[in-house]
């Protein structure tokens, strides 16, 4: 068991390392290379040509004249210390921009994912319990319909109707103007008010798929012998429903959590742009628009790290719920 956790932890670091290396490689492939735009900007600002390289090194943690392996080592060392250089467009250290953005993205993704799980599991369980009922058919129909709606369509429509037409919700930002950040009521309500539409559009489109999956799993579990045995033993319905059926039906969903979280985190690029919600995705998009490569790679790395950590936590807790996970590997043929 301890071996499994050790391996899993090592894999997390390896993954982050590989993705960081990948981002270094991609920067090199970017059109015009990583420095041409910056060099042009600096020259236009009147920086003497002899100092341009030094300025670039200062801003991006990469010395353009150094050999490739040295550039790589410098880049990785800086990234390891949380230093992603300076944003070209915003003129601020990338790490500071990201530090401001991360909490909002995590907030939206976490809240919507939890809501999706809770509602999806509840709906799916009730459907399975009343399999074939009118309720089951209705919810199945609605689920399939919702599954075919991309979240950004809901987002645009919600923004159009509730923010622009009716004016019930703000059209941009994370908190109202003049609201002080801190532990106070005004801040919380303002934050919730701003996050309501993004969370709503993220959640409503995800529930359907989870409900259908939970329904299918529960029906399958209900047909198992051990459920029948539990009934014959005279266990109470609630005990069977929670201990026997729900637990075994939720387990497969838990592994799907990994993929779900990845889609959610990645999707923030679209979601946050629609709502002008300055989180990680929003900055990644704006960096893209302004060819701000340091900010773009910084947000990409941090989004990936967030996903890796999320999956890591999910994996560790999964090992606790389901002891089968840490069983050994199969024989080689």
């Amino acid at each position, binding site marked *: 068991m301890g071996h499994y956790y050790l391996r899993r932890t090592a*894999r997390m670091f*390896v*993954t982050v390392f*590989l*993705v960081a290396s*990948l*981002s270094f490689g*991609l920067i090199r*492939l*970017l*059109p015009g290379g990583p420095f041409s735009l910056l060099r042009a900007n600096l020259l236009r600002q009147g920086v003497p040509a002899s100092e341009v390289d030094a300025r670039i090194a200062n801003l991006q943690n990469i010395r353009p004249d150094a050999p490739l392996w040295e550039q790589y080592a410098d880049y990785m060392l800086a990234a390891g210390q949380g230093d992603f250089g300076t944003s070209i467009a915003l003129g601020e250290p990338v790490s500071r921009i990201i530090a401001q953005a991360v909490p909002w993205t995590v907030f939206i993704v976490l809240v919507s994912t939890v809501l999706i799980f809770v509602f999806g599991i509840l709906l799916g369980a009730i459907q399975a319990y009343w399999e*074939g009922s009118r309720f089951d*058919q209705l919810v199945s129909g609605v689920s*399939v*319909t919702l*599954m*075919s*709606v*991309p979240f*950004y*369509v809901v987002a*645009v*429509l919600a*923004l*159009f109707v509730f923010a*622009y*037409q009716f004016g019930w919700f703000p059209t941009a930002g994370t908190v109202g103007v003049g609201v002080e950040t801190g532990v106070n009521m005004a801040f919380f309500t303002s934050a919730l008010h701003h996050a309501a539409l993004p969370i709503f559009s993220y959640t409503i489109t995800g529930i359907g798929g989870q409900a259908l999956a939970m329904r299918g799993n529960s029906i399958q579990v209900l047909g198992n012998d051990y459920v029948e045995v539990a009934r014959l033993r005279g266990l109470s319905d609630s005990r069977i429903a929670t201990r026997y059926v729900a637990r075994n039906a939720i387990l497969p969903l838990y592994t799907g959590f*990994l*993929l779900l979280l*990845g*889609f959610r*985190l*990645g*999707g923030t*690029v*679209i979601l946050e*742009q629609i709502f002008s919600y300055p989180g990680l*995705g929003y900055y*990644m*998009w704006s960096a*893209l628009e302004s060819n701000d490569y340091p900010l*773009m*790679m910084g*947000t*990409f790395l941090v*989004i*990936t790290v967030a*996903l*890796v950590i999320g*999956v890591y936590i999910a994996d560790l807790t999964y090992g606790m719920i389901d002891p089968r996970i840490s069983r050994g*590997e*199969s*024989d*080689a*043929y």
Partner: protein
Amino acid sequence: MPTEADENENVSWRSDSGVSADVTRWERADEFFEERIRKPAIVAWADRRTRIGLLILGIYLGMALIAVFDLYRAPSTNQATQLAGPFQSWDYPLGTTMSGVDLLSLIIHSTPDILLMIIAGSVWATGVAVLVGTLAGYKGGVVDRVLMSISDVVMAIPGLPLVIILAVTFNPKNPIVLGILININYWAGLGRSLRSQVLTIREDSYVEASRTMGVSTPRILQKDIIPNLMPYVTVNFVFAARYVVFASIGLFFLGVLPYSAQNWGVTLNYAYSGGALFTWEAAHWLIFPMIAIMGLSLGLILLGQGMDRVFNPRVRTRLAENSESTRTKTDAAMTEDH
């Protein structure tokens, strides 16, 4: 003197090809058709969802053909009055955009590229997943560990941001390349679940038999393992397709993917930045491309769920018991199940 070894070479002991000498090739083809194509098709067709799904996809295919054979006028600016409302004239049934482009022709002429993209993306995703999943699951050991480690890393990279960065880097315009790019790391999750299925299949006695007889690994994978995975793969093909629709349109809408031709996402982008968000008069400019997207994904989901039904053993058993009255039997099964 003929030895046993000689005979072994002449008669293949594999279940599907060497039943006995007097089964002709034609009869075998017939049986294959019966088992693998006709029966599943009947079960699939018996499901209302498959029928509706296929109908919807047929409409999109029709739209693509209309565009390819140029049966409907191509979209161009100022071909009509600006921002005409929908359902007001037969010339422009869905209305027009700010720059006077017929919305219906925009939507129709976007279809071929989108379908190409979807097919390329899902073929890529399922193809790589099958390769990785079966190889890792069947070979086990080092191969398994290496392939699964790679999958784990690939799976840990969030799809959309990766696609965005790759799109900026390589700037692909070809719909096929775009489709593959969008599903560039989709295979990892699917490959993992295929691997766990292979792990159970490979312990089956007929696989064991092939292995003992020294049949090569590629042949075992191809003949014994992959056919058993097909149900799962087919269903996931459809879901991979849906993912391409969602992701590609979303990214076109953001304006991050390079594009050379018209596209629902690009239309959405123009509508969005053209102020369709602020007035009801321009709402149709946003809504019709959205309907096109949702219709396509609804068709794919319905088809996927109907296919899932094909491989549901409960329905299949009923079918096998009484193949004459399949239609009524399966229909009865459907109503019971619902």
